[in-house]
């Protein structure tokens, strides 16, 4: 660690915070400013001027948009996320009850997919051009180029319908034993894993191949080192940065994946909450969920950047 690295890290983190601020402007603009007058929409075309003014005052629409934005942002920062317009419950309460479910799902999926993806990716890179590499790469391209819900549908078809190993839907409410937990989680986690493993494997493979084709590896090979030693002792330590980068970036695909997976398996998580919020046009809920997802996304992408900086030896020894 030296001053240069610290400075770069600081810059990346400041940039991420700035992006988050810009994202909050976009989120607020799309949900609360651009669609037009929410009071007019709620009351219809033939509402009286008095009724409109009263509803606007009640909804806080009588103040100009920039001030509404600042008020909303202040609430967001102080943890006051507003009240859901359909259920009349505080949004923070709704999110609080669903967030642990989603985090658990994401954590379990990450726990399984990271080791599988890394070993597949490294193996495919080492034996590149072999039948194994071709099969793994083709499989990964196939999974990446179909929608997540298709992977989920296929998984249900194979494991729940044909083989009858697992239940098609997951309900977290009636879980008593570890076995039930595993059975309920199996399908959503399996689907998420497929999507992430495919992404991560491709990126890991590219990162390791990048190193294996470098001149210093040829030197190691000429020196007579065994293939295992070439990969483990020489190539991998240099590929740690790009691989960590790939892991963090691939995990950001979790965010898109959970939206589909929670809906198809009826899993009571935060993404299902948001999709329901969107179909009922429950703006406070949608805004809060969107900010939560965008923050998580920015954290993962920034982490990927930070790994890249810290693991770059040229920056470390200066």
């Amino acid at each position, binding site marked *: 660690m030296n001053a240069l690295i610290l400075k770069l890290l600081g810059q990346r983190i400041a940039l991420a915070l700035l992006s988050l601020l810009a*994202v909050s402007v976009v989120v607020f603009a799309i949900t609360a400013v651009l669609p037009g007058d929410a009071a007019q929409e709620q009351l219809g075309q033939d509402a009286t001027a008095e009724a409109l003014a009263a509803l606007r005052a009640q909804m806080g629409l009588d103040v100009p948009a920039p001030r509404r934005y600042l008020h909303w942002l202040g609430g967001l920062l102080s943890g006051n996320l507003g009240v859901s317009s359909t259920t009349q419950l505080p949004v923070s309460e709704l999110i609080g009850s669903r967030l642990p479910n989603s985090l658990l799902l994401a954590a379990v999926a990450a726990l399984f997919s990271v080791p599988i993806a890394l070993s597949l990716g490294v193996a495919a890179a080492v034996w590149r051009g072999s039948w194994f590499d071709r099969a793994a790469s083709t499989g990964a391209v196939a999974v990446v*180029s179909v929608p997540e819900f298709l992977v989920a549908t296929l998984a249900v078809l194979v494991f729940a319908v044909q083989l009858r190993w697992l239940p098609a839907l997951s309900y977290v409410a009636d879980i008593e034993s570890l076995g039930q937990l595993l059975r309920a989680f199996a399908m959503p986690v399996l689907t998420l894993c497929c999507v992430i493993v495919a992404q991560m494997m491709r990126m890991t493979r590219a990162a390791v191949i990048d190193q294996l084709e470098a001149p210093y590896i040829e030197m190691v090979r000429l020196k007579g080192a065994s293939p295992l030693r070439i990969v483990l002792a020489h190539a991998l330590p240099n590929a740690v940065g790009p691989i960590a980068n790939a892991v963090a970036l691939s995990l*950001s695909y979790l965010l898109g994946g959970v939206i589909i997976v929670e809906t198809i398996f009826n899993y009571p998580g935060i993404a299902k909450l948001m*999709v329901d919020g*969107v179909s009922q046009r429950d703006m406070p809920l949608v805004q809060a969920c969107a900010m939560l997802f965008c923050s998580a*996304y920015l954290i993962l992408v920034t982490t990927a950047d930070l790994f890249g900086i810290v693991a770059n030896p040229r920056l470390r020894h200066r």
Partner: protein
Amino acid sequence: MSTITTPGGFAGRPASPWFARLAQFGATGWIGIAVIAFWALAAIVGPALLSRTGAAGGGAVFAPISADHWLGTDYLGRDMLARVIEGARYTVGVAFVATLLASGIGTLLALLAAATGRWIDAALSRGLDTLTAIPSKMFALLMVAGFGSSVPMLIATAAVIYVPGAYRMARALAVNINALDYVTVARTRGERTGYVMLREILPNIAGPMLADLGLRFVYVVLLLASLSFLGLGVQPPAADWGSLVRENIGALADAGSSVIVPSLAIASLTIAVNLVIDNLPGHSARERGVR
């Protein structure tokens, strides 16, 4: 690189690069082109060729494949073949228009950024970077929450989401071209910015941008299908392939054709486009994982 001269062709003029590339296509590339052509034809002339429309219901619900219903029936007893063909219009058509818009706008903005001064470039790059800080599905959900979901709305949403990607790709290419001597010559000659953008730079980035267009088309198809699958995309009674999977998810329990067929349709289209791109000579965009 081999060039094919057209018989009795114009002096010194090589055959079109696209023709030359098609001749080098592998078998998988041709399979991809065939599948894409099939779905494009189905979208354009398909509904006119069918003896029944997807709106006519009344048959047995979730009927299996039979001589009468080639692909079975859906959850209201409507003919699946007709529904899938009509769905092709939405899936292929909406995605195609959205992709054209995204790539077109992205390329034009990139040309503008490369050919004009530093300020426009910086402002455009920063502004579009902000959009990429929002995951694509999240942005789509926000747009649907704000503006509801109609077909023009879906096209606009998908176009906005994929403009930054197309812009970044085109800008990287255009900046390189802009630094070449013949562009400087054109400027010195006194050509206007518009001429430099469209006549000097654009023809030289068109090839890679077309490959990028194909890739972006796949993303748009996936995004719109996912949105429809969530019930937030194309609204009933119209249906794209994503909505067809959603509508008929009840047939999943007995592996009915009505849920499998639209799934296969989506997969065949996206994989076909991928096959074609893989067979293009300069398909490096994929390897770099630009998304």
